């Protein structure tokens, strides 16, 4: 977990930022300098909707090193209320209680810890309302 990368990505991870294209009007995630739909760079930052519903989900028991502290955890593809889809952990829940279409809300959580002495990476996750 390198400090410049954590720093560069922090706003996107904390605020769940995408873009809204001033030319074609489409929205997209993640943040980009150009619109992936029409190619213009006339785009502005857009903060994703904070609530949505679960489209697909599973649980992760074999996680990467930095995320093993939290395993097993649930993970899903969420369709936010603005139509944008993102991948995210679904936390504070039991896997067996999750259902497709379940309503979730974005929360601020720890994504990864770099051991006991390194940095802590924060970002968005989801929880049932």
């Amino acid at each position, binding site marked *: 977990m390198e400090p410049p990368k954590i720093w560069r990505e922090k706003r996107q991870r904390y605020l769940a930022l995408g873009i809204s294209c001033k030319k074609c009007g489409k929205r997209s995630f993640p943040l980009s300098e150009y619109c992936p739909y029409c190619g213009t760079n006339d785009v502005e930052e857009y903060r994703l909707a904070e609530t949505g519903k679960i489209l697909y989900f*599973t649980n992760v028991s074999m996680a*990467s090193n930095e995320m*093993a502290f*939290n395993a097993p955890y649930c*993970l899903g593809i969420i369709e936010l209320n603005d139509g944008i889809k993102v991948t995210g952990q679904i936390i504070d829940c039991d896997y067996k209680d999750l259902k497709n279409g379940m309503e979730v809300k974005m929360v601020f959580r720890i994504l990864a810890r770099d051991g006991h002495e390194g940095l802590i990476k924060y*970002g968005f996750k989801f929880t049932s309302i």
Partner: protein
Amino acid sequence: MRMNGKNVFVIGTGLTKFGEFYDRDSTSLATEALNAAINDAKIDRSSIKSAYFGFMISNSSPHSAFSSKCLRECNVSIPFTRVEAGNASGAAAFHQAYISLASGIHDCVAVIGSEKLSDFVKNGTIEKILGSTIDYQWEYEIGATLTSLYAMITKAHMREFHTTMEQLASVPVKNHKNGKENPHAQFRREIPLDRFLSAKRISDPIGRFDLATHCDGSSALILVSEDYLERNNGIKNKIPILSSEHSSDVLTLHHRESLTEFKSTVTAAKKAFTKVGIEPTDIAVAEVHDSFPISEILAIEDLGFFEKGEGGKATEAGLTQLNSKISVNPSGGLKARGDPFGATGIAQIVEIVEQLRGRADKRQVSEVEYGLTHNIMGTGALAYVNIFGQEEMEQ
């Protein structure tokens, strides 16, 4: 009919056994495979003009060192290129080698796929390595693993097409049955259906035994163009590469409209079949990317062997077994042969070439006219499809 470029042929294959070789390094494995391919091609090693190495991580030593060392130990002093396309690095290296021959830049090249994954014994390391085959920032760093993404793909297929756990498990059951007859396979034993069904779910519905194992191994090929054959009479057992195609899809799963179709595979397959002028039904034997049970089901659907949604039923009905409707993964696939990422794409080609040469012994498919290989990166961001034919075939 010649569509574009020069005709290209495989004239030599080499393969190490796949498995866990704690006492050997990448150089040792790659050297064994390349030497075997050179010997199989029965050519003077000074004919080889360039080498393409396909690997993702190689081993725990720095990357470029092993390619140099391998060439030195094989006594060839030639330029080399490292090609990386995640767990499809082998097929990617092959494709680049093919281009170099089809374009006429070279007339004889070596392709080497190698990976030594048994070095990475610490928990979570392989998950991190595979994290670079998916969207590292917005999937992996969010908490997704390649397995968890395939778990969601599996669920989507189950939901859309009523694919069952038994149908899914029949993929590795069949591949382990095939792998039993492959001397290069990591696992040479059959595993009953129950074992897959009762195993702990690591990412529901994917069980602990459903994954292809990440192991060690090397594979190599000697490829030549028609120019080389014109100047060197008497080259035997040459297998023509009828098409080598490469397609992509958006990297991130949440950007895709459908989770149950890999567009990259569909597109690469269409291009490949169009170029050769044949239909999927003309393929007798195929080596497809079966990293998870759902991977093979998606592959046989997206390649056009079966209708979308029918892959699970077809597999359970035995239509993909050896010498059935189409023999899929006679080698045992990634599942039973083992999956040393970069070595896999080339090992698939080795298997198809051996099948076309009629040298596949107990796993030989009868009456093979055309064979196909299919290798993908991650969740199908890249797909490589190659079609091979019989030696005498008009191109």
